[in-house]
C-alpha cells in the first residue's frame, strides 16, 4: 500500500500510457471506422488526463471540448454520411504493405529513440506555479495561458483565425453541390 501511495504518480502514468497506446493501436487496427473513431476518442480523453497531470488544465479542457466534442463528432458525422455501400467488405489494410510500413516506421522510431536516449533535455526548475503565474501573481493556468495568448502570441492567434476561415471555405468548396454540378449530373442522367 505504501508502495502504491508513494509511487502513485508513476503507476497512474503507466496505466494511462498503456491505455493511450492501446487506444492508438485500436485506431490503426480496428476495421470498422466507427470503432476506430471511438478508440481515438478514448485516446483523446487519456491524453487530456495526461495534460492535467502535467498541469496544463486549460489545454486538457480544450482537448476534450475541441477534439472529443468537435472533431470526433465531425468524424462520426462524415462516417455516417459517406457510409458507402460495400465499405466494410473491402479490406481495411494495404496488407502487403503492413510489414514494410511497420519496418519503416520502427526504423524511424528507433533512430529517433536512440537519439533521445543518448541526448539530454534542458532541465528547468519549473513546476506548476510557473504555468499559473500572471504578472507575478499565481492565478491559475487558464488565466496565465490567456494572458500570454492575447499579448505575446496575438499575431499567431489572429492568423489562426484566418486558418479557420480557410477551413470553412475549403469545407464549403468541397462539400457544396453547386448549380454546375447539377448541370453535369443532369447531362449524365439524360
Amino acid at each position, binding site marked *: 500500500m505504501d508502495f502504491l501511495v508513494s509511487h502513485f504518480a508513476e503507476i497512474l502514468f503507466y496505466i494511462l500510457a498503456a491505455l493511450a497506446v492501446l487506444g492508438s493501436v485500436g485506431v490503426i487496427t480496428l476495421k470498422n471506422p466507427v470503432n476506430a473513431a471511438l478508440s481515438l476518442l478514448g485516446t483523446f480523453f487519456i491524453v487530456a488526463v495526461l495534460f492535467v497531470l502535467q498541469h496544463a488544465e486549460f489545454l486538457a479542457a480544450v482537448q476534450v471540448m475541441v477534439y472529443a466534442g468537435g472533431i470526433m463528432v465531425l468524424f462520426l458525422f462524415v462516417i455516417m454520411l459517406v457510409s458507402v455501400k460495400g465499405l466494410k467488405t473491402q479490406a481495411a489494410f494495404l496488407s502487403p504493405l503492413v510489414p514494410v510500413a511497420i519496418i519503416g516506421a520502427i526504423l524511424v522510431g528507433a533512430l529517433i529513440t536512440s537519439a533521445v536516449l543518448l541526448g539530454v533535455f534542458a532541465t528547468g526548475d519549473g513546476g506548476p506555479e510557473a504555468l499559473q503565474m500572471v504578472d507575478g501573481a499565481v492565478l491559475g493556468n487558464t488565466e496565465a495561458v490567456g494572458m500570454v495568448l492575447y*499579448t505575446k502570441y496575438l*499575431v*499567431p492567434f489572429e492568423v489562426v483565425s484566418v486558418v479557420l476561415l*480557410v477551413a470553412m471555405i*475549403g469545407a464549403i468548396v468541397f462539400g457544396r453541390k453547386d448549380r454546375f454540378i447539377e448541370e453535369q449530373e443532369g447531362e449524365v442522367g439524360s
Partner: protein
Amino acid sequence: MPLEQFVPFIPEIFLAIASFVLLVGGIGLGRRGMRPLALGAVGSLVVTGILVWLFGRPAGEPEVILGGMLAIDTFAVFFKLLVLASAILTIMLATGFLERFRYGGGEFFALILTATLGMFVMASGVNLVSLYVGLELMALSSYVLVGYCKLEVKSNEGAVKYFVLGAMSSGILLYGISLVYGSLGTLDLMEIKTALVAAPQDNLVLMLGIVLMAFGMLFKVAAVPFHVWSPDAYEGAPTPVTAFISVAPKAAAFAMFLRIFAGAFSPEIDHWRSVIWLAAAMTMIFGNIAALSQDNVKRMLAYSSIAHAGYALMGVVAGTAYGTWSVLMYMLVYTFMNIGAFGLVVLLETRGYAGETVKDWAGLSKKAPAAAAGMLILLLALAGIPPTGGFMSKLYVFAAAINAGYIWLAVIGVLMSAVSLYYYFRIVVQMYLVEGEEAESGAELVRDRWAEGVVLVSVLVVMAIGVYPAPFVGWAQGGLNALGLM
C-alpha cells in the same frame, strides 16, 4: 501592447480583410462577377504591395514587433513582394481559365489572398509559433486550391495526396519543433541562436529536432525524398494553381528555411549540413532524370521544379552570406520563369482540363511565333542558358557552392543542368523542328489577354535579369539585412 506596433502589420490586416470582402463579393456577384472580382483581387494585392512598401520596411536595422512574433527587415520585404508578384500573376492567369472552365472566382481569389497572408507570416516570422501558423495557413489554402476543380478526378486526387502527405510532414515538422523546444526551452529564433552561439551543443535530441524540422521544410520545398507529392499535385491542380504552388509556397518555404537554418541553427551547421547536402544532390539528380521521360508538360515542369529546389538548396549548403542571397536571387528568377512557362501551358489548354502532352506544342512556331519565342526564352532560362536570368541565378548558387568548397555538389549541379536542357528541348523540338501533319496536330492558343500579359512580363523580367542583373542582385543582397541571419 501599444497600438503603434500594429503599423507594420497593416498589410497583413488589409490582406485578411480583402480576402473576406472577396469571399462575400463572390457569393453576391456569382459567376458573372469574375472580372470585377479579379480586378478587385489584383487591386488589393497591389495595394498590399504599396502598404508593404510604406509600412513594412525597416527604418534601419531589423526590428521585431508584436511580442517578437514578426521581424521587420528587408529579407521579409523581398519575399513579401516576390510572393505578391506571383499572386498577382496567378490571378491574371486564373481569371480566363476559371471562365473557360466555368468555376466561380470568389473563393478562389480569397484563397489566393489567404495563402499570400500565410506566406507573409512565413517570410517575416521569427518565432516558431508564428512560422508554424503561417505555414499551415499557406498549406491549407493550397490544399483547397489544388482541389478547386472538384469535378475533375485529377484535381481531387492531387488535393487528397497533397493533403495527406502535407499533414504528415507538418506532423514531422512539429515533432522536430517539440524536440528543439525541449532541449533549448524556447521557440524564439533569436533566443535559439543566442543559446547556440553561447554554448555550442552536440546534444542528440536537439540535433534530431533540427533534422526533423529540416524534413518538414524539405517537404515544403519539394526536395527528394519528400518530393513525392509534387508531381501529382502539380499535374492534378488547375494549371494556374500549379503555377502558383510551384513558386510562391516554395519561395516562402525557402524564406522560412533560411530564417531557421541559415539563421537560428547556423551555429550548428556542421551537424545538419550533410543531410541538406544529400537531399540537394538527390533532388537535382532525381528531379532532372525523372523529368526526362515525361510526356505530360505539367508533370515535366513539376519534376523540373523539384530539380530547381535542389539547385537553390546548394546555396543553403554553402552556408555563407553569399549562398544565402544567391538563394534569394534564385527564387526571384525561378518565380518568373516558372510562372511564365505555366502561363503558356494555360494558354495552350484548349482541349479541356485533361492535360497537355509534349505533342500539343507541335508547330507552335508557325502558328504563334511570338508565343513560341517566349516559351523558347523561358525554357532556355529554366535550363540556365545565358544571357537569361536562369543562367544568372545558377551562376550565383554554383559559385557560392564551389567557392565554399562544395565542389562535388556543384559538379552534380552543372551535370544535371546540362541534362535538363534535354527535356526542355523536347518542347523546343516540337515547337520549331516538327513540320507537316504532326505540326498540324498541335493545340491552338487561347485568346486571353491577361494570360498573355503574364507571359510577356515573365519573359521581360527573365531577360532583364539576364542582361542586366545588377539591380536584382542588389535587392537580393539587401535581403541579407535580416533578423537572425548571419
